[in-house]
């Protein structure tokens, strides 16, 4: 059976690429610290020696639109083009192409459907920065095949938070039941408190530092019960209008398991939002 080599949860910040590649007067004052933290985080994936990446993210109204909106979608394609015109325009993100692992896609689709997740699928999916940001931060050589999994944290009505946790658990079980000798890293990105297009955006910190502190504790300790006891679809409006992206962190807590502490925890308080990085090693600490 396949091995889960690493479970990784992260924020996805589209400004990282430009900040980390800028030089001289263009380089923001926080870039050196940010880049150092990312390079340490990247090493946690490199050390796990993965062969395949399952990548959980959320399309930002690029390919998925309100006339046909899936709640959970799995990509099944031999290749995935990456990034879109408006991401080049606003964030300076590069375009590139990743290979897919169709066999693992098929296994997750079939197994997910058989476990009562009515997964949508796509045979031609152009992925966006929710998946390319962690490629840029964690695997910039972009040399491993992926299975993209998109969740709807963006266009209400949304699934309940517990459903994200359940899907995370199912993805973990499905990877571990895949008849393969490959090492699979399961990587997902979301947000802590975040405001987009509202009065609390682009502040000196994220819109709700108290929520951020609590969220980091929940994730670092694998405290799914504590998190699910407080987080509801309604409550997630309070820390910021885009905070429903936290449900992708909840999905990753489901992957990592109840009560399982992360082996690597780091965060960075930036303007606009807090960054947070977590790695678990299911085989035991590799550090």
């Amino acid at each position, binding site marked *: 059976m396949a091995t889960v080599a690493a479970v990784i949860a992260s924020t996805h910040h589209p400004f990282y690429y430009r900040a980390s590649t800028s030089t001289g007067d263009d380089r923001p004052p926080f870039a050196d610290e940010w880049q150092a933290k990312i390079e340490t985080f990247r090493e946690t994936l490199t050390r796990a020696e993965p062969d395949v990446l399952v990548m959980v993210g959320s399309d*930002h*109204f*690029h390919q998925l*639109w*309100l*006339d*046909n909106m899936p709640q959970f979608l799995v990509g099944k394609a031999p290749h995935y083009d990456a990034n*879109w*015109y*408006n991401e080049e*325009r*606003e964030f300076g993100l590069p375009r590139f192409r990743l290979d897919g692992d169709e066999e693992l896609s098929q296994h997750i689709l079939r197994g997910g459907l058989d476990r009562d997740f009515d997964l949508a699928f796509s045979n031609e999916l152009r992925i966006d920065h929710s998946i390319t940001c962690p490629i840029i931060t964690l695997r910039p050589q972009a040399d491993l095949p992926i299975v993209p999994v998109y969740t709807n944290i*963006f*266009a*209400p*009505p949304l699934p309940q938070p517990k459903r994200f946790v359940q899907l995370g658990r199912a993805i973990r079980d499905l990877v571990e039941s895949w008849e393969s000798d490959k090492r699979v890293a399961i990587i997902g990105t979301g947000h802590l408190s975040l*405001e*987009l*297009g*509202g*009065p*609390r*955006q*682009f*502040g000196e910190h994220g819109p709700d530092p108290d929520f951020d502190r609590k969220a980091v504790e929940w994730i670092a300790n694998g405290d799914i019960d504590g998190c699910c006891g407080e987080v509801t679809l309604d409550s997630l*409006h*309070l820390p910021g*209008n*885009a905070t429903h992206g936290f449900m992708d962190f909840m999905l990753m807590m489901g992957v990592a398991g109840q009560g399982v502490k992360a082996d690597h925890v780091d965060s960075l308080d930036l303007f606009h939002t807090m960054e947070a990085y977590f790695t678990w090693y299911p085989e035991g600490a590799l550090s």
Partner: protein
Amino acid sequence: MSKYLLNKFLYTVDRDPELVERYREDPAGTVAWWEEEIANSILNCHSREKSTWLVFSEEERDVLVRQDHVRLFELGAHPFLTLTLFIAMFERDHGPLEYQIAYGQALAQVPLPYPDIAT
């Protein structure tokens, strides 16, 4: 009131570089053209097939012509779509992050809970 159609306008304009410029330079002409030609296009569908019922209310048309992001927020347009398009149109006229911060400040009077964005 159609949050969906407001969102569809923001979505289709934002993703087309020529339309971004056209809307910046000629809001009234772009909104009128868009409602006539694009509003009823079923995206991701064969181009000959169209819907027959999508039309802006007078207020929606006016808000888009005035490029009023505060009123769009109050009407429940998706804030990510509005923000992304308005940054594309107007960030260039300001210093770093100046536009984004002013954009948020203009919304300071909107109380919690924010208007519902469900479509």
